């Protein structure tokens, strides 16, 4: 089979289970394509030799009862992987090799998958364009010099460019859904507490969630089924009854009530986004669901709230990168001097900006006005959703206020960069699940995504809605393999 990398995860799993393909063949195909795709700069660390060995080993004694039998997979470089360098896209962790495995990746390997390598991302997942990575920009397979979104930019690029059949990202304010939207792929941010945070380099602990990024909804459901487990090593992990998301996946969403929040019609939103949304509304209706206008009155406060809460937590979470124990250390005259030089040289500009914002909002005298108030607003935002969910089963919005932009276009304007997350951030603040699916193209032919937001722990429902819509939308990603010479 020559078009192995074009197959979806579901197809690959079937073909391996039916012994039509071996893990070695599949792994080789993705390694070959990855080798030819260096220009995308999707990988920070390649682990191809080891992947080939593991594939061979798998084929010698294949366990075909596993959910991801011999499937090669690259993962975002925010997940700690045992004996494989883990950088979080930062110079400060440039040489850091964990002796431990994150729970989410452990779950994946336990189901038979094989690590291909570690994918590029914004430094400490802080960014919406993958431009803050110490390891450079990532190219969007859609077009040259186009950002893939962020922070899971490498992951989105690798899935869209078929360098990996599927991947995982992390989403603190939109870091899975926005790059999915920019690359014409599917990305799910699960309910907070669904996937363990153990072994994931922390950005903002109360918002971070790992989630699948895939070519289609079914693949996404399958990976979610694998990665979502209760984990006693994460005190915020929640022990709830998890569905067999892929098995229970259905396109029957007749009678579902879908909320359309008026506050997401923001000023200056391009008409093509509005049109896409209207098309989305029509799609869900075509599927037999009902749409209901709803109000989420505190939506406009979500972005400022997020940019207080997330940096506050980050400023504290990143304090451990001090040059003392591991990672990059600059020489200093004394302890304080060493700290200052290590952190000035080790962190990039965006990370430093957020550490400073976070330090500021937690400072005595400012805490009440910023952090405490933000926490109160966060509660109001959550209440908005709780109220809405008395009337509806899910909410439909655009994923992003625009399509992908050019590399460098927004690097000097952090606020315009932050505005990218305007539709995704409220979901993290409320701890809810949200999925972005590709739903159309803009005038330039760039993909646009729609977001379905669910009730807490109701991943199955939004996956079903996404699955039904996917069928109606019949989206085709326009990828020309421009980077392959």
């Amino acid at each position: 089979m020559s078009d192995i990398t074009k197959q979806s995860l579901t197809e690959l799993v079937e073909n391996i289970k039916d012994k039509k393909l071996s893990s070695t063949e599949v792994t080789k195909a993705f390694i070959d394509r990855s080798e030819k795709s260096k220009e995308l700069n999707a990988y920070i660390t390649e682990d191809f030799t080891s992947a080939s060995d593991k594939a061979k080993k798998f084929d010698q004694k294949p366990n075909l009862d596993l959910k991801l039998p011999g499937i090669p997979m690259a993962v975002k470089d925010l997940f700690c992987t045992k004996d494989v360098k883990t950088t979080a896209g930062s110079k400060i962790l440039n040489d850091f090799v964990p002796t431990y495995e994150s729970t989410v990746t452990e779950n994946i390997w336990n189901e038979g998958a094989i690590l291909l390598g570690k994918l590029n991302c914004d430094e400490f997942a802080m960014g919406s364009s993958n431009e803050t990575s110490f390891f450079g920009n990532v190219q969007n397979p859609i077009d040259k010099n186009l950002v893939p979104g962020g922070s899971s930019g490498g992951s989105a690029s690798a899935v869209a460019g078929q360098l990996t059949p599927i991947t995982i990202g992390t989403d603190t304010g939109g870091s899975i859904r926005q790059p999915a939207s920019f690359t014409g792929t599917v990305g799910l941010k699960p309910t907070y507490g669904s996937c363990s945070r153990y072994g994931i380099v922390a950005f903002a602990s109360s918002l971070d969630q790992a989630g699948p990024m895939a070519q289609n909804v079914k693949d996404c459901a399958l990976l979610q089924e694998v990665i979502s487990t209760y984990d006693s090593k994460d005190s915020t992990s929640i022990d709830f009854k998890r569905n067999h998301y892929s098995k229970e996946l259905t396109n029957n969403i007749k009678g579902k009530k879908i909320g359309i929040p008026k506050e997401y019609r923001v000023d200056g939103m391009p008409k093509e986004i509005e049109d896409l949304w209207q098309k989305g509304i029509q799609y869900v209706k075509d599927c037999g669901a009902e749409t209901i206008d709803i109000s989420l009155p505190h939506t406009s406060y979500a972005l400022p709230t997020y940019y207080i809460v997330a940096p506050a937590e980050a400023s504290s979470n990143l304090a451990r990168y001090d040059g003392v124990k591991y990672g990059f250390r600059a020489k200093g005259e004394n302890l304080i001097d060493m700290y200052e030089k290590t952190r000035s040289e080790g962190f990039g500009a965006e990370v430093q900006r957020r550490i400073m914002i976070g330090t500021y909002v937690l400072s005595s005298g400012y805490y009440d006005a910023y952090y405490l108030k933000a926490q109160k607003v966060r509660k109001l935002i959550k209440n908005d959703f709780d109220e809405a969910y008395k009337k509806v089963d899910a909410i439909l919005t655009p994923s992003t206020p625009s399509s992908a932009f050019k590399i460098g276009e927004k690097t000097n304007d952090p606020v315009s960069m932050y505005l990218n997350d305007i539709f995704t951030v409220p979901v993290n603040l409320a701890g809810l699940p949200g999925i972005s699916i590709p739903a159309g193209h803009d005038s330039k032919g760039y993909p646009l995504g729609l977001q379905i937001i669910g009730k807490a722990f109701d991943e199955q429902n939004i996956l079903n809605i996404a699955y039904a819509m996917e069928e109606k939308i019949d989206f085709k990603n326009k990828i020309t393999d421009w980077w392959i010479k």
Partner: protein
Amino acid sequence: MSKKNSEYLINREDNQYEVVIGLEVHAQVLSKSKLFSTSATKFGAEPNTQVSLVDAAFPGMLPVINEFCVQQAIKTGIGLNAKINKRSVFDRKNYFYADLPQGYQISQFKEPIVGEGKVILDMPEGQKEVGIERLHLEQDAGKSIHDLDPQNTFVDLNRSGVALMEIVSKPDLRSPDEVSAYIKKLRSIMRYLGTCDGNMQEGSLRADVNVSVRAKGSKEFGTRCEIKNVNSIKFMQMAIEYEANRQVDLIEEGKSIDQETRLFDTKKNETRSMRSKEDAHDYRYFPDPDLLPLEVSDEFINELKNNIPELPDDKKKRFIDEFKLSPYEATILVSDIDTAKYFEEVVAKMGKNKDMKLAVNWITGELFAVLNNKNLEISQSPVSAKNLAILVNLIKNGTISGKIAKTVFELMLDGDKDPQKIVEEKGLKQQSDPKAIEALIDKIINDNREKAIEYKQGKEKLFGFFVGQAMKASGGKANPQLINDILKKKLQ
């Protein structure tokens, strides 16, 4: 001693000053593993051998609360007669230091696990109640070692993440003696509960001491200084003494006192400024998002309450009521749980016909003296409670005299020997046969006829001489009461 006289005041020419002290005691929770990780907590292990990825703050590592430490804190709260908060919150206290791997300490700031309580002190002038403001759980930091290398500092993370209880008193203490009594009482309560071993040499118990002074009779508090991390009662007392006098001197000179953090230099016996209020850290406390608020149910608390052992105050009351001990004796016996245990075992082993006073005297007298001499804890006593009980019974039933008992006791020290056997083997049994003693006395009187006449003529002092001779002749074994009685009869 009257109450007035015991007041601790600092006197200057025209003025008298009262000292106001509040303590923040850091007590290491007695637990096998750390507050948020499964690493061991044993004291004295090789550096960095009790460190997990969580303790060293590796990327992606998360804290998971050790439920046992929560139980220990609640038990301590119960022992301090304090309010147990069903909901408490862990916060991050942010600051940079080489032995603080996370860059923050997980502590409880706004919502501690234990609220207000009280402790009763037994002072010579009577009881004194000291208010407890709060008790909260927090992580200990690691240890920086500066003196192993001229260039580098070494860090030992064995302590990093060990659970501490910070017990904050109200500013109710008024003298170094009260501080001593307070620390001893806290330690006693925690040792009874098994929540802290109270070992100050190993750093299991240390305190920040807040000291201020005010004119005697004044209701306003003066400006306080905090003396950081004092690790012995003696040093606390010395530091308070020095600090209070320093503050009084400033006031007397018309100067003001700066609110600041100070260090006690044990070699120079003085406190030194460490940092002023202006230089105080901004710890940027905020709730730790890696941990959910800690919620405990009534059942959980009640279960712990029902299993609280008898605490020193109750035990003391029982010793007075049940064993008819004096308050003074009871206080001494209950102050340390092992002493109380020893005493109660002696009482149990003495059986029905017991002499409580005699037992108390032997424990607080001979036994304490030996322990003191040999620098031993009562739990390491060379004489078991069982054998001490036998010895006391031998005195009580007249088998041996108190004097012989001391000889027997000396012999018991070597290998916890059974006193009964010693008495038998060495033939130390008291001679209580009146006929034998009579014969012995007859002989003495016969040998000392002149003295007997002198005595009868009124030289009563000579009675002692005859007793001594009789004792000597019996090898110290004759029952002294019988000697007295018979001598009196014979010399009439």
